[in-house]
């Protein structure tokens, strides 16, 4: 995250970054020194080219994460998952495949469950993201979190944040009316430890006990 640069100016898309940097990097090589102006060498040594590149390659993004507004700059190629994990240090959201095949990265975007590895951070301008870190109300756990503990809906815990985010959405969508329906609508969330029956129990329990929104 580079908090110092929040300008809304659109970066120039047509600069050939690679060529420019190649020149700078090459020009810092000994063989090229005699050909390069002194200031350019200094710039290369100070890695100014890379700082320049960073500024150009990033887009401004306003995004609300767990109730907190974030004004950041982010490369367009950064997934929502990596943005959360690597830039915001919200590592509760997990990476299990990076390909939309496991559900470990499930978060809520405006209340709907989304595989954060399959979407880019910059697509969520102005959206509200909720991650596992934002589910509890301070020290008071969300009923789904309580139910997962009570029913032992996990072992290693790595799929758990994704399962819980998915489970909360599953009930909100109205897809938790029977155990079979829960199984069907939770099948995008893999648990290799195999805690499935306990996860289904936890969801059924919350559904039966009523869920706080």
């Amino acid at each position, binding site marked *: 995250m580079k908090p110092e640069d929040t300008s809304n100016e659109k970066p120039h898309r047509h600069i050939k970054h*690679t060529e420019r940097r190649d020149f700078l990097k090459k020009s810092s090589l000994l063989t090229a020194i005699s050909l390069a102006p002194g200031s350019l060498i200094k710039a290369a040594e100070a890695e100014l080219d*890379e700082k320049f590149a960073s500024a150009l390659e990033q887009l401004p993004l306003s995004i609300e994460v767990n109730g907190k507004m974030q004004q950041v700059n982010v490369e367009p190629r950064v997934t929502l998952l*990596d943005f959360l994990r690597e830039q915001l240090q919200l590592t509760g959201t997990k990476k299990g495949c990076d*390909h939309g095949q496991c559900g470990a990265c499930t978060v809520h975007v405006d209340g709907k469950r989304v595989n954060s590895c399959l979407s880019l951070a910059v697509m969520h301008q102005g959206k509200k993201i909720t991650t596992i870190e934002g589910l509890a109300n301070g020290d008071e756990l969300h009923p789904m979190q309580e139910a997962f503990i009570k029913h032992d809906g996990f072992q290693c815990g790595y799929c758990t944040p994704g399962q819980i985010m998915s489970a909360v959405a599953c009930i909100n969508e109205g897809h938790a009316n029977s155990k079979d329906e829960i199984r069907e609508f*939770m099948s995008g*969330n893999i648990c290799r430890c195999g805690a499935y*029956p306990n996860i289904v129990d936890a969801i059924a329990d919350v559904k039966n006990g009523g869920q706080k929104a």
Partner: protein
Amino acid sequence: MKDLSSNNKSIVDGPSRVDGKHKVTGKARYAAEHPIDGMLYGVLVDSTIAKGTIASIDSKAAEWAPGVKAVISHLNSPKIPGYDDKFYGLKVFFNNKVLFYGQPVALVVADSFERALHAATLVKVTYNKDKSETSVDKNLANAKLPGNPRMKDYVRGEADAYKKAEVSLEEEYLMPLEVHNPMELHAIIAHWLADDKVKVYDKTQGIKDTQESISKTFKLPQENVQVIAEYVGGGFGSALRTWPHEIAALLGAKKTGRPVKLVLNRMQMFTMVGYRPYTRMKMGLGATKDGKLTGITHEATAQTSRYEEFTEATVNMSKFMYKCANANTRYRLVQMDVSVPTWMRGPGEATGSFALECAMDELAYKLDLDPLEFRMKNYAEVDPENGKPFSSKHLDEAYKLGAEKIGWYDRNRKPASMKEDGMLVGYGMSSGTFGAFRWEATASARINADGTLVVQSAVSDCGPGTATSMVQIASESFGIDASKTSFILGDSALPPGPTQGGSGTTSALGSAVFDTCLALKKQLHEIAAAEQDSPLYQSKFEDVKFEDGDILLSRSKKVAITDLLKKKNVPSIAVTLESKGNEELQKYSMYSFSVHFAKVHVHPLTGVVRVVQVATVADSGKIISEKTAAGQMIGGVTGGIGMALTEEGVFDDRFGKFINNNLADYHVPVHADVPHIDTIFINKPDPIINPMGAKGMGEIALIGFAAAIANAVYHATGKRIRELPITPDKVMGAEV
């Protein structure tokens, strides 16, 4: 919704995991989740041939890409002092040889993950390609006796006696290649604190093993290597050893002088961290007409890599599971141009039990006996392999309880005779076993002035709930409430704990915790008994009890431990102790046992198999924590459902490469595949193995399960599918 809970109420209402809150709130930190200032990101470049040599590596474009700090390959890798002739395994970036498809050939280190990932695509590698062999079936003629002397042929009585039996059977079975695929991708953060001092956050099931192997590889004093693994997102065996990517990350950090985080991608999880080897088996079984076994022959041929031999106990179970005078086994390996396999949950036995337990079912039908009755007729009261008594064995009881739970005797035994809701219905059963051990382990226990007990050991927990069990053992043995007890793990600087594998953690570590708490109690009592004004003055340890933080001689004569510490003016008292089994253990055969019963539905037109009910019984001594034990059993069954119905790593042998190396194409069970599972525990302490009487259960939860499904599919359809996984095409294609 009726049928609210799978587990019975007492388990649900019982104590929960001590680390549960961290896991459900996202606070639990796994290997890749430790923030360190100045951290760089490493991305591996993998070979795109299975065999040959690297002709050239052009890394210029990658080096010039923004944010790139280093590109490392065999051309410029820092030398690794431990890569000598004695080194076992793949030496990363060592020379230009390519030994399997997907071998790491270069590492790109950059200041962001995206930059490293992009730059890795810019590294151009050319190869001189040789012809590779990855098909076991095409290379069976090259099968060889392993170099490992423990794997030589075994004969008891007469070899191949089944051939002369009154009733006999000879069939072939196949276990395909399976991949662990824990949900957490293997990951490491390597951080050199000085030239000869390194700290790693690593995904490992064996903290001390990882410490030792890094210290050996880089020739560092062991104490200069610190390994942290607070949380491990599953392993199932894949994190039981140190792999090349871990060394690569250490090299990247060394070269750049900055901490480097390296996370494998899911494709790399198929080639870089082991798998269960493809294994072809032949079973020969012979019996008298009335069902007494007269011969057991089990042969297996498994794949291994060319650069390292991997062997496992595939044929062992056939030596001791049933009473039989004649038994023999043969185990062979075929070297392939693949990465080396490794232990995967229920290693060896999970593969072997599929053949043995299917064959037992087949022979039972040939003999017109109920498969359960046939097993009981050949029940081994003592270990047939060595004549030793079992330290404890309640398999007979397990058979009975499981049969009752699933309604075994209410079924019509005739194949293809039952239907419900338009589905063919089948019931199947099988059993499993795995050695029970007691390795050495060290723990420390500290009682604080505020009355809290802290127990510690250098172990990691990949899911079974080690901290939860250890808290339970410590609080019970110390006579203190569990809420006042904590267990600290995940750091190699703690007293050396066991590796979490082979279902041995609870036995080894639990014993150490038990013994350490005992020693701490003795020490506290000694202090109290020496105080002239103490109600316990000159009392004997045998006469006192520890309850609720008090040392009691009688109701009126007691000392609160907190008062004792206050009086002595010490903040805490601690004991560190190594614990191991004694000679006595050698007199016994020690095993855990399991029984699996399953009911399946087979769709008559499509051949789709659905598991609709499971009852699984564990005979694994005393159960320390019922909730986590039940979790282990349903987890094992879930793995077994995958093994039985969907999991299979497939190669394109023309290129020697995986073609389903992702979670969309390699099918692990999902929610919709897993029904209600009843878990039953015999819960009788083993009087021999350790002070708690607890044996392991991680492996037996899975071992044998796939056979129960195959047998149920036979019962439903009259078709024997002997090659896993049992996919619809096989069901539809098979003959009755």
